[in-house]
C-alpha cells in the first residue's frame, strides 16, 4: 500500500541532477526548438537575469547534419557520445521519436524529455506513436516526461532542460504543470517578482511520468518546501490520492484545477487528451488528501510561497494589527468569510499595552488591533511582541497603510525580526507602491508574504490554517 517515495525520488532525480544531457535535434537555426533548448542549457536561457548561469554538467547536441553548434561538438547520434548521458531532450518530429528512443536505450540514458507534440492529444495515429515509444522506453529502463511539453527546469542546479524562456530564480516552490505555456508565463512573471522555484516541470501528455511521480520526487528533494500543481485531469485517480496523501503529510501541496465548467471540461479534453470528471468530486478528493486548493493562478503562486516559507500554523486564531481602521475592518470581513477566528485581547494584554507608553490612547483595545495612523516601528513592535508571544494567537496579519509619518522600512524590519523570533506565521499587507517600495522589498527579501489587498492576505492565512490543521490531524 502506498508508493515508496524514496524509490521514485531516486528514479526521477536523474532529470534534476544528470551528469550529461543530450539534445536530439539540436539546431544552428535560431528559431528552432533545438536551438533554444541548447542555448538554455549552455547559458541558462534567452532572457538574462542577475545570477543566471548555464548547466555545468555535460551538454551534447545531436544532429547528423552538424559538426558543431554554439561551440559544442555535435554528434550524429546519441550512441556516438563518449561520456555518460543521463537524460535526452527530444526536439525531433514525432515520427522520429521511436527510433531515437531505441538509440537512447542503447546509450544507457535514464530519462527522456519529449517536447514534440502530435501524440496522444492529436488523434489515433498520434496515440499509437505514443504507445510505441513508451513501450520501448519502459523496456529499456528509461522514464519519460511528456510528450507535448515544455520540459524540466531545476534552478538550484542551473539546469534548463526545456523550451522555457529562462531559468527562474532558485527558490523553494516546485511547480508541476499540465500546461507548458503557463510555465513560460509564470517564469516571466517570477523574474519581475524575484519569486524563485526549486523546480518547474511541464509534463504534457503524461504518457509515462505523471503527477504522483513528481509529487514523490518533490517530497524528497531537499530544495523543495512546497509543491504547486496546475492540473486538468488526473489519469489514475486512486494513485493520485494515495501518493498525494502520503506527500502532503511531509510538504504542503497546493492545486489549481482547471476544467470546472462544462465548457472548460471539454476544452481540457482537447488540450491534452485527458478525461476530466466533476469538479465537485475533485474538491472532495483534494480535501481528503490534505491538498490546499487555489482559486486562481495568483493564489496558487502566493499560497505556495507562503506555505514554503512560513512556519506551520497551529490553529485558526488570527490577530490583525493595523495602522488604518478601514483596512482593519475589511481584513476582519475577509477573515470571518474564510472561517478564521479573531479572538479579542484579554484585559492583561490591553493593560500592558496601555501602560507601555508606546501605544496611542485611542487605540482599538480590540482585535483588529488598530494602533492608529501615526504608528511607528516601536508601536508595531510593542503590539507584535504581545500577539506573537501570546498563546491566544496562531498567526498575525500586519497591515501598514501609508501615512505621512510612516516609516515603512522600519516597520518592515520589525515584522521580519518578530517573525524570526517567534516562528509564528506572519502575513503582511503593506499597502502602497512607490513610497513604500523599500519596506515592501525588505519583506520580500525576507520571504514575508505581502499583499496590497487584505483579501489576499486573509485567504492566504486561511490556507496556512487549513494546512496546519491537516498536519496536526494526521500526526496524531
Amino acid at each position: 500500500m502506498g508508493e515508496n517515495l524514496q524509490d521514485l525520488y531516486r528514479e526521477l532525480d536523474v532529470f534534476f541532477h544528470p551528469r550529461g544531457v543530450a539534445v536530439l535535434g539540436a539546431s544552428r537555426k535560431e528559431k528552432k526548438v533545438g536551438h533554444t533548448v541548447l542555448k538554455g542549457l549552455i547559458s541558462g536561457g534567452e532572457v538574462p537575469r542577475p545570477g543566471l548561469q548555464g548547466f555545468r554538467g555535460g551538454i551534447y547536441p545531436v544532429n547528423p547534419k552538424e559538426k558543431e553548434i554554439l561551440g559544442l561538438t555535435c554528434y550524429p547520434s546519441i550512441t556516438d557520445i563518449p561520456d555518460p548521458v543521463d537524460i535526452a531532450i527530444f526536439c525531433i518530429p514525432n515520427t522520429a521519436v521511436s527510433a531515437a528512443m531505441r538509440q537512447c536505450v542503447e546509450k544507457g540514458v535514464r530519462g527522456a524529455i519529449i517536447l514534440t507534440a502530435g501524440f496522444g492529444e492529436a488523434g489515433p495515429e498520434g496515440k499509437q506513436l505514443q504507445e510505441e515509444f513508451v513501450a520501448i522506453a519502459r523496456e529499456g529502463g528509461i522514464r519519460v516526461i511528456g510528450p507535448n511539453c515544455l520540459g524540466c527546469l531545476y534552478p538550484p542546479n542551473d539546469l534548463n532542460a526545456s523550451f522555457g524562456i529562462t531559468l527562474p530564480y532558485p527558490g523553494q516552490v516546485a511547480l508541476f504543470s499540465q500546461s507548458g505555456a503557463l510555465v513560460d508565463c509564470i517564469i516571466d512573471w517570477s523574474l519581475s517578482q524575484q519569486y524563485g522555484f526549486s523546480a518547474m516541470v511541464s509534463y504534457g501528455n503524461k504518457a509515462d511520468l505523471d503527477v504522483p511521480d513528481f509529487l514523490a520526487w518533490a517530497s524528497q528533494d531537499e530544495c523543495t518546501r512546497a509543491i504547486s500543481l496546475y492540473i486538468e485531469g488526473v489519469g489514475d485517480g486512486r494513485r493520485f490520492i494515495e501518493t498525494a496523501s502520503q506527500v502532503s503529510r511531509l510538504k504542503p501541496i497546493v492545486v489549481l484545477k482547471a476544467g470546472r465548467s462544462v465548457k472548460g471540461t471539454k476544452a481540457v479534453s482537447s488540450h491534452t487528451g485527458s478525461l476530466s470528471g466533476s469538479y465537485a468530486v475533485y474538491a472532495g478528493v483534494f480535501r481528503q488528501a490534505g491538498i490546499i486548493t487555489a482559486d486562481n493562478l495568483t493564489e496558487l503562486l502566493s499560497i505556495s510561497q507562503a506555505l514554503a516559507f512560513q512556519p506551520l500554523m497551529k490553529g485558526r486564531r488570527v490577530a490583525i494589527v493595523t495602522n488604518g481602521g478601514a483596512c482593519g475592518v475589511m481584513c476582519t470581513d475577509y477573515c470571518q468569510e474564510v472561517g478564521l477566528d479573531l479572538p479579542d485581547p484579554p484585559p492583561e494584554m490591553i493593560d500592558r499595552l496601555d501602560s507601555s507608553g508606546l501605544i496611542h490612547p485611542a487605540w482599538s483595545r480590540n482585535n483588529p488591533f488598530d494602533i492608529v495612523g501615526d504608528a511607528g516601528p516601536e508601536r508595531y513592535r510593542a503590539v507584535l511582541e504581545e500577539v506573537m508571544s501570546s498563546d491566544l494567537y496562531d498567526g498575525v496579519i500586519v497591515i501598514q497603510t501609508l501615512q505621512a509619518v510612516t516609516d515603512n522600512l522600519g516597520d518592515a524590519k520589525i515584522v521580519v525580526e518578530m517573525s524570526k523570533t517567534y516562528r509564528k506565521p506572519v502575513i503582511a499587507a503593506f499597502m502602497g507602491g512607490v513610497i513604500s517600495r523599500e519596506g515592501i522589498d525588505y519583506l520580500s527579501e525576507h520571504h514575508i508574504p505581502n499583499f496590497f489587498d487584505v483579501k489576499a492576505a486573509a485567504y492566504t492565512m486561511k490556507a496556512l490554517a487549513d494546512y496546519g490543521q491537516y498536519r496536526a490531524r494526521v500526526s496524531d
Partner: protein
Amino acid sequence: METKKIIDEALAEGRRALLEYEAEEIFSNYGIPVSPGRLARNAGEAEAVAGEIGFPVVMKIMSPQIVHKSDAGGVKVGLTRPEDVAAAWDEIMDNAAAYDPSARIKGILVQKMISESGGREVIVGASTDPQFGPVIMFGLGGIFVEVLKDVSFRVAPVSPEEALRQIREIRTIAILDGVRGNGPIDFTALADLISRVSRLMLEQPRVSELDANPILASEDGVRALDARIILA
C-alpha cells in the same frame, strides 16, 4: 441472504437493478440501518411479518417491471391492523395486475413505518468514477441536493472521521446541527453509515451505483428508508 447470492440471483434473472428489499438486505449485511421488514409472498405471510415487526406498517409491491410503485397503486401506508394488511394485499395485487398484467411479482415488502418527527432527510449515494473508483456523495434530501447541489464527495475508503468532515462541508449543515427546536442529529451514526457504504462499494465491485435516499437522521440514530442498487 448473503450479498454474493443476492447479486448472483439478480444477474441470473437478467436484472441489473436490485429491488428495494434486495438492496435493503445488502445494506443490512453491511450494518447499514434500514426499516425492519421482509418480503411477503402471500397475504398470510404479510400478516405474519406485520405481527412480527409491529404496527404501523407500509406495504410496497416488489416487481422488476414496476418501477414507479406509487403510480401503479402499489404502495399502502399507515396500516395499523392485521385486517388492513390483508385488505391492502388484495388491493395492491389488483392494482399491479391492472397496471401491468405481464409484470412478474416477487411479492410485497412489508415494512415498519418509521415516524419522521424530529428527523431530517439526508441522502448518501455512491457511484463509480472512471478516475477515482467508488465515490461517495452526501447531501441533505430533496431540493438541497437537486436544486442547490449542496453536496460533498469523498473517495472510498472513507473512515468515520473523514465521513464526519465530509458531512460538515455542506453549506446547510446548520439544519443537521439543529434549527427550529430540533436538536443535533446523531452525527456518529451518520458518519458510520457513510463509512459502511464506502466499504460496501469497495468490497462489491459488481455494484456500480447505489442510493440510500432518503435516510432519516434524528437525534438518536439514522435509518435508510429506501435503497437502490444498480449492478455493473
